[in-house]
């Protein structure tokens, strides 16, 4: 028994000692390709560069009506209180031309004769650039004195003589009316000319230096009712500038009663800016010319020209849509045009569309459709495919000649991605990444204007599950050995027809990029997520891709020198320095949405997640990887 007890005791003691031992290592570091430290790269939702679309109906804008652009008014343009009220004038309405320091206030130089050169109105103490036409009601001496005051700097040499005046010009039109051309198209194709009507050239007025007097007893009497142009004083430049400040007495002996009329009043020298025919004492431009030796204007050398009344033709008839001031680009938007009188009598006969951030398709085509999601009908408008590398396209399509007869029957504008170019129908669950509603369908023959911005997502023929895409999700990972890895969680389900791709890009050179391929699900299956838009099995659940991976292997450490920061310089495992001599090419990792038929070699602009992986445009800080 003693042996038995001894054996049992020995076993028990050995077991107890073994059970209590606690010196074993629990963890050991894991390395890959000789590297056991991973520089973290984190991707965050950015949500930029998604496809966008704008669209609108086009009606033949009717410029034949009197004031199609709604620019007519009984007051002249820039009829306002002095923006610097109290400095030079009170706040009563006057014409203040420049608003700020600007060059010659004529909008584009679209009328001929062209301006000889630009002068710049400047401030001589009124708080802003000086370019005033002040009626008597606002003037001094109890409302009896007009003042026309301009001060400017000029590139011409000192001693240049200038003369100013009110002018009644007629317009000789070349092609489309210039103001309408600017408002509709943003530019002028052929410049119209300003001329004097036959028998309407009769210069008179004051050619001497302008004179300013605050009292009607000393101000000039300058008659209207016949002169054209009516000259309003001159001035000679000095010190790089010139000034013409002429006051005119409106009352009293010898005064022209027309000057007693306020701005825009009948018979006022400054007419109403509408379709009212100009009288013989009314003018539509204020002009400053270089003067000839005798101080008469050199009509070929206007240097400042301000339109203050409507344009007339050579017969003196007011031209439709030619109200002051001369419009400046850009053209009015479609939405702005729709609100104007010129759109009222018209019905949409075509549609315009502008698409941005749409990637070139290697196969298939983009198609624009009008859809009635209530009736399930659709009509195709046009097909396009941006050129390789391009991401923008615009279309203008008349309804006539397409399957879309007019605008009345539809309620959605849709962009579809078709697997086959020329397809004439939409599949059951089409890739429709852009759509926008415009009107409730109208009865045929009624007006159905529409315009709007498109949403990005899955339209699905207007089904109840139409969803707009919103960027989301996160990614984390880094360079580990020869691989770049990202673990991505909770990415939104891609729109129908789209897939996620991993990209390495350069922030300084858009021509440099690597497409690391379509994302995959997590291990062990690493299933391709090319079908994530329709998948019903994990890792896709509901509207999310619960987990995905991005993986890229450069093959050699040397290759990573061109990709970004990996590690610092180490000697025997100790960081010794940071090398900044090796320039990185790729400094950003991103997850991008791309159409399935997209050109894999061109970068998709739709970024869902992104994060820096190096020094933008700078240097690799981890040279040991390059050695």
């Amino acid at each position, binding site marked *: 028994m003693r042996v038995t007890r001894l054996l049992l005791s020995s*076993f028990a003691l050995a077991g107890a000692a073994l059970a209590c031992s*606690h010196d074993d290592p629990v963890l050991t570091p894991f390395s890959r390709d000789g590297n056991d430290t991973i520089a973290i790269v984190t991707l965050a939702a950015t949500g930029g560069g998604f496809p966008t679309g704008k669209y609108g109906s086009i009606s033949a804008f009717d410029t034949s009506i009197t004031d199609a652009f709604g620019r007519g008014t009984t007051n002249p343009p820039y009829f306002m209180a002095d923006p610097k009220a109290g400095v030079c004038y009170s706040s009563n309405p006057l014409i203040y031309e420049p608003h700020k320091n600007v060059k010659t206030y004529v909008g584009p130089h679209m009328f001929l004769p062209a301006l000889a050169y630009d002068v710049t109105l400047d401030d001589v103490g009124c708080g802003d650039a000086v370019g005033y036409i002040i009626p008597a009601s606002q003037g001094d001496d109890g409302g009896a004195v007009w003042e026309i005051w301009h001060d400017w700097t000029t590139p011409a040499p000192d001693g240049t003589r200038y003369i100013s005046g009110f002018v009644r010009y007629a317009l000789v039109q070349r092609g489309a009316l210039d103001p309408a051309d600017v408002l509709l198209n943003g530019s002028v194709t052929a410049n119209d000319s300003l001329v004097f009507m036959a028998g309407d050239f009769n210069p008179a007025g004051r050619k001497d230096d302008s004179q300013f007097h605050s009292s009607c007893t000393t101000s000039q009497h300058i008659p209207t009712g016949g002169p054209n142009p009516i000259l309003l004083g001159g001035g000679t430049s000095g010190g790089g500038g010139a000034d013409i400040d002429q006051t005119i007495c409106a009352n009293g002996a010898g005064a022209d009663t027309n000057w007693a009329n306020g701005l825009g009043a009948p018979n006022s020298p400054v007419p109403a800016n509408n379709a009212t025919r100009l009288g013989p004492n009314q003018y539509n431009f204020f002009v400053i010319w270089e003067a000839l030796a005798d101080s008469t204007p050199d009509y070929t050398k206007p240097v400042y020209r301000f339109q203050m009344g409507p344009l007339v033709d050579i017969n003196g008839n007011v031209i439709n849509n030619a109200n002051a001031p001369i419009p400046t680009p850009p053209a009015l938007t479609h939405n702005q045009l729709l609100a104007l009188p010129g759109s009222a009598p018209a019905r949409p006969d075509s549609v315009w569309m502008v698409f941005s951030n749409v990637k070139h398709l290697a196969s298939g085509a983009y198609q624009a459709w009008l859809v009635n999601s209530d009736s399930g009908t659709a009509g195709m408008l046009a097909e396009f495919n941006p050129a390789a590398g391009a991401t923008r396209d615009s279309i203008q399509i008349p309804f006539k000649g397409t399957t879309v007869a007019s605008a009345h029957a539809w309620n959605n504008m849709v962009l579809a991605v078709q697997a086959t170019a020329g397809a004439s129908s939409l599949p059951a669950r089409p890739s429709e990444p852009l759509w926008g509603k415009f009107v409730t369908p109208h009865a045929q023959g009624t007006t159905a204007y529409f315009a709007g911005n498109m949403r990005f997502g899955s339209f699905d023929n207007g089904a109840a599950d139409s969803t707009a895409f919103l960027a989301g999700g996160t990614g984390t990972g880094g360079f580990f050995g020869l691989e770049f890895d990202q673990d991505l969680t909770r990415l939104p389900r891609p729109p129908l027809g789209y897939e996620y791709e991993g990209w390495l890009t350069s922030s300084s050179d858009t021509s440099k990029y690597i497409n690391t391929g379509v994302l995959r699900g997590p291990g062990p299956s690493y299933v391709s997520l090319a079908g994530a838009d329709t998948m019903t099995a994990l890792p896709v659940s509901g509207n999310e891709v619960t987990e995905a991976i991005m993986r890229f292997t450069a093959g050699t450490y040397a290759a990573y020198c061109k990709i970004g920061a990996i590690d610092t310089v180490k000697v025997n495992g100790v960081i010794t320095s940071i090398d900044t001599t090796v320039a990185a090419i790729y400094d950003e990792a991103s997850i991008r949405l791309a159409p399935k038929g997209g050109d894999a070699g061109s970068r998709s602009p739709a970024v869902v997640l992104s994060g820096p992986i190096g020094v933008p445009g700078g240097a690799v800080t981890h040279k040991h990887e390059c050695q």
Partner: protein
Amino acid sequence: MTKPLAVLSVIALGAAGSLAGQAGTWTVAPAVSLIRYDRTSALSSTASGLSTKLWPQASLDATYGVRSNLRVGIYLGASRVTTSPDYFPLVLFRTGSNYELWSVQQRVSVFNYGAQVQFDLPVAPAFSPYLRGGVGRHTLYPDVQKQNAVSTVSGSEFMLGAGLRYSKGSAALRLEVTDFMWSNFDRDALNPVTADFQNTVFPQDNPKGVRWAKPSLTHNLRLALGFAFSPSSGGNQ
């Protein structure tokens, strides 16, 4: 025979005496053994064949002879095992702007115990093969500090074995092979790392054993060499 097994044999043979399989007597059988836990259990290794991982185990049987060839009793075994890192996701640590991956393992104490029935098949006066079977439980005690908790992993156990006994007097030398079958053993319960720190960022680096299936019945094979004696007969003095 491996070197540890030879050492165990010498120890056991030195302690062997004689034992008769008699009814109405208690027999005690301590043994030292080598056990190869199931390859899916994380207590072995992913290697196969002779490269598999073996662990020493101490065991003790106590049986009572109800008939000349039928004995009933209890059994228990104990071993101290280090889990294999080949079955657990790597640990992902974030240190500043870097990640680090570490493999994980821990020591666990493994106990199994239960009731057994043994049939003797006498073919010669000194040599008799036998069969044994039983039902019990297994209980594993993970490292308290690594697990950051006092916890156990337990489950049902079924035991089947066969051996050969050489008897001399009231003592005997036994050599047997036993399969301890654990029901629904989940190796992940031995992972001391919480889900937050398990590597999902670099999944391709996780050991391949992570994805191995978990059978409903794991087979833990033990080769034991021991001796048996009857305390009531005075044992080998």
